[in-house]
């Protein structure tokens, strides 16, 4: 005889720790299989958000990534309190994401080419850029400059971190200044835009790649869709501020599915490396 627990809820057909529903096509996806497919829906190709560690595993050659500047943590420059003090928000985000702040930087190889790799994590306070993110990215760019190594930055961010006020805004100038040096020294910088890349991050380093790649369907824009629709007082067309919209208007080079991202980056790195060497021979 089957015993029934009178207090228990009905067992779900698709328990959430095993299954995820695709928000795009509604397909129930088995989590293990989804992870194996780098969090891309097998049916419709919807790209779920990817954490920084999984992203590094996707892009870097196995065991080639060594993290740098791992210990830098945020302080509270303004003593900022909204509904919660800023340090408490940081602590909560650290506990939730397992990272110290919203970016991981380090040295890696992609398809055998040594690079400086920086990967943002949206899980940490919406990937927002404050002092720590700005400093780590600037150091990454400076290391790329000093070693003449290409720089790859994968962005996933809502923009500047409001809790750090104008200091956060100045991180735009700080990171861009470091990127500008790479530009002058002809050191390749590949910028990968993932869902979402908006605000101050898009209005700074993320737009300035020699090559700008975007993942399919990612939200990419300067101002939040809510602000924009309030500005014009009407609803925005479907697909507004998505990767394909930016491709159409000429602001990204390619929209690349996640599964092909690594080989595509490796291709560009190799092309630029060969070009650089040719030039050095001819001089």
């Amino acid at each position, binding site marked *: 005889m089957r015993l029934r627990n009178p207090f228990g809820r009905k067992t779900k057909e698709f328990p959430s720790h095993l299954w995820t529903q695709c928000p795009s096509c509604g397909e129930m996806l088995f989590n293990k299989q989804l992870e194996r497919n780098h969090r891309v829906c097998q049916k419709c190709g919807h790209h779920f958000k990817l954490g920084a560690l999984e992203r590094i595993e996707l892009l870097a050659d196995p065991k080639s990534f060594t993290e740098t500047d791992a210990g830098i943590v945020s302080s509270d420059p303004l003593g900022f309190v909204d509904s919660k003090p800023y340090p408490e928000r940081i602590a909560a985000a650290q506990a939730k994401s397992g990272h110290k702040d919203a970016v991981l930087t380090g040295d890696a190889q992609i398809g055998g080419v040594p690079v400086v790799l920086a990967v943002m994590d949206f899980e940490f306070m919406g990937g927002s850029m404050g002092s720590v993110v700005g400093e780590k990215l600037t150091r990454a760019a400076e290391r790329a400059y000093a070693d003449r190594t290409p720089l790859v930055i994968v962005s996933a961010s809502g923009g500047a971190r409001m809790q750090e006020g104008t200091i956060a805004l100045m991180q735009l100038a700080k990171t861009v200044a470091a990127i500008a040096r790479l530009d*002058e020294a002809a050191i390749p910088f590949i910028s990968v835009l993932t869902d979402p890349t908006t605000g101050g991050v898009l209005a700074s380093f993320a737009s300035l790649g020699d090559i700008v790649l975007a993942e399919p369907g990612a939200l990419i824009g300067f101002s939040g869709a809510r602000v924009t629709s309030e500005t014009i007082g009407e609803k925005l067309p479907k697909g507004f501020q998505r990767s394909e919209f930016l491709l159409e*208007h000429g602001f990204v080079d390619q929209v690349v599915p996640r599964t092909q991202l690594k080989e595509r980056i490796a291709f560009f790195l190799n092309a630029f490396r060969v070009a650089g060497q040719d030039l050095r021979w001819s001089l």
Partner: protein
Amino acid sequence: MLDRIVGSRRATEGNGHLAVEAGLITDATQLASARPTPWQTVQTARNIARPHALDIIGRVFEHFQELHGDRSFRDDPAIVGGIADLDGRPVIVVGQQKGSSTEENIVRNFGMPYPEGYRKAMRLYRLAQKFHLPLVTLVDTPGAYPGPEAEERGQAEAIASSIQLMTRLAVPVVVVVLGEGGSGGALALGVGDVVLALENATYSVISPEGCAAILWRSASEAERAAVAMKLAGPDLLETGVADALIREPAGGAHTDHDATAAAIKSALIAQLDRLSRVPIADLLSLRYERFRSFGMFVEPDGNATPAPAQPWWRRILKNPLEKGGL
């Protein structure tokens, strides 16, 4: 290092006169003790009667010739720029232009530039570099225009490129924040060797209303947000966002445009005098350092490995040994 250029915050400037005497406020203690609240400052900075870019340009410079258009799409009226003489020497001046009436504001889009506005600015920056003319920018915007056409034409890319160009522009650059310094849209004109701000100007990462709407989920909390965001003059000095403040007439800049312009003019002449004596390569590396140094964070020591635990017997012996016992 920056002190070498701006003149020390405390001591004398290069020419031997005090920065304070030149009408500049370099320390919050020099401000009147009865300060307006941050929210009042926000209101003053937005006052429609406040001198806007063209009001200042007409009073500070002579022979201003406006240059129009970005050479690819159109002329954005929210950004004005051109060539003018400052104290007998030609400079390039670029600024965001708000209107002084509702009609003018509609034409000027309330000082919110489109991407083509920033591309016009970039064209003028390049012109300055090509002909070795110092650059003066006047910042006064609620922010870059957030509409769908601006997105289509690459608002973010225009701002990013403008910032990038300014960080490496091989001429002296002086930035003056006249009123509102609204986020990335302001920073696209805001990367200079020296950043000055009028006493009642603000500079912020997002408008107080926007911050309140996101963090407090209510735009009516803007007053609280304005306090928390530290966007007013004294805070800008403290964080180093502004190197010095330009004193306004007693009732605020809107009460006396001439006096405000005179204060800006003497500050500009003094700063450009000094900057033009610095070799360009030094100027660029100092500008890099100026923006490189923003950020407050905690870093563990270089070798952050914890000290090895001492054996128990040494821990016991340690204190007596230090006191000279045993």
